[in-house]
């Protein structure tokens, strides 16, 4: 029943004109589609954190990894820059590493601090990572290491936006400009107010 309701909600959202955000642009409405924020991970200081700790302010969640050559740092820089411009109060950005085997806690701390105080680093355990992949449909498979022990990790390129209650509201696509992200952040802040 819950599943049929989800389908009905999805179809309604597709047909409705009164949407949270558009469904063909670089930022899409995922209200009711993507599951609420729920996890238990360790942060960049090695402390155990839960999704509940992020309640009370909107949070953008991005899945990537530290050794990611270009996409991850660019995305984080865009998010952090947009957050500065849009200045939506206590909005936070959570960077979840999908390569916890290689990304250690100290590396994670060093990495996220480079993107400013809003950005939190999160490191899931093996089971938690699989659970996140099931909940948010993100990929995390690591390729085989090359001769130098290097490997590329496949990861999601979207950024999930959750409101202050932890409900998923929007998904930012890779094509989004800083201005798109700013407007998405404002929407998210309004929805959380």
């Amino acid at each position, binding site marked *: 029943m819950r599943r049929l309701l989800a389908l009905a909600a999805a*179809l309604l959202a597709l047909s409705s004109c009164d949407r949270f955000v558009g469904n063909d642009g670089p930022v899409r409405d995922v209200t009711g*589609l993507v*599951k609420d924020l729920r996890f238990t991970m360790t942060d960049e200081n090695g402390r155990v954190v839960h999704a509940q700790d992020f309640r009370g302010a909107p949070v953008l969640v991005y899945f990537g990894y530290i050794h990611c050559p270009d996409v991850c740092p660019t995305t984080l820089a865009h998010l952090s820059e947009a957050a500065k411009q849009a200045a939506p109060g206590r909005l936070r950005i959570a960077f979840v590493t999908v390569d916890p085997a290689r990304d250690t806690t100290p590396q994670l701390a060093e990495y996220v601090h480079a993107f400013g105080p809003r950005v939190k680093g999160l490191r899931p355990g093996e089971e938690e990572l699989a659970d996140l992949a099931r909940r948010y*449909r993100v990929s995390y498979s690591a390729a085989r290491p090359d001769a130098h022990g290097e490997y590329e990790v*496949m990861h999601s390129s979207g950024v999930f936006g959750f409101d202050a209650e932890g409900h998923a509201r929007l998904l930012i696509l*890779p094509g989004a400009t800083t201005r798109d992200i700013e407007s998405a952040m404002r929407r998210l802040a309004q929805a959380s107010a």
Partner: protein
Amino acid sequence: MPQALRDGLAFLLPWEFSPLAFVLCVGGVVAYAVGLSRMAPEGRPSRWRSAACLIGFGLVWFVTQTRFDYYAQHMFFLHRVAHLVLHHLGAFLIALSNPVAVLARGLPRALTGRVLAPLWRRPAMQLAVRLVQNVWVAPVIFVGLIYFWLTPAIHFVAMLSPDVYWVMNWSMFLDGLLFWALVLDPRGPPTAWAGFGARIWMLILAMPPQIVLGAYISLSGVELFDVYGLCGRAWDMSAATDQTIGGLVTWIPAAMMHVIGALIVISRWMHADRGRPAPRAPLLVPGAGD
């Protein structure tokens, strides 16, 4: 334990456990085995029919319950393979084995006698089944569902929402079972719901829309399903290659299943015309074995 064996076992563990898949596939196989053991040897279906049924259930389990499902969520062409199994191959094999008589003997009597048979006899149920199994309606639903779930905006939602994904996969399997059971019914008219000629028409009419859709996806040159890039592909394959292969899977093997189906129907038609009964044909009514 060697690493390769451990990886293999991990692959076979349910990626996202579904009670429905467990009831359908494991329950179906167990009920089938119990049903066979309760039948007199001369009344049992042939070995190839039993094998078709078990392979059908096994394939459906494989694409929905193993790590394959993770890959199907992240590669468009593997998603198309999963739907080929759910909607065509798996459902086709189960329908071809015509397992209802065996299953009815294998299921607990309380379930067949008190739940399934009364449910089946309900006028509303009869009407609903008659409607979806109408020779004009069935192929429209069959093709319509493929188009529906491959509409880019709807596909986006289905691949992002675990609940909608569940509805998508099981609606495909249910519709596949209904369609192929109608087409591969071993009985001829007047007991069967569709005449042999009508079944061949259904198969032929449902083929071109799938070919057109598969060819369009394969050859369009535009990224139609951006959700895979968004969620991350399972390995490093370009979106264009993924979509091209996915379109081919939608196009060629699906059309081939229709040709194979039509050949089976033609052969049965010829048998029936020669006045011989179609190869051993148990009744298709649940509880008929009681």
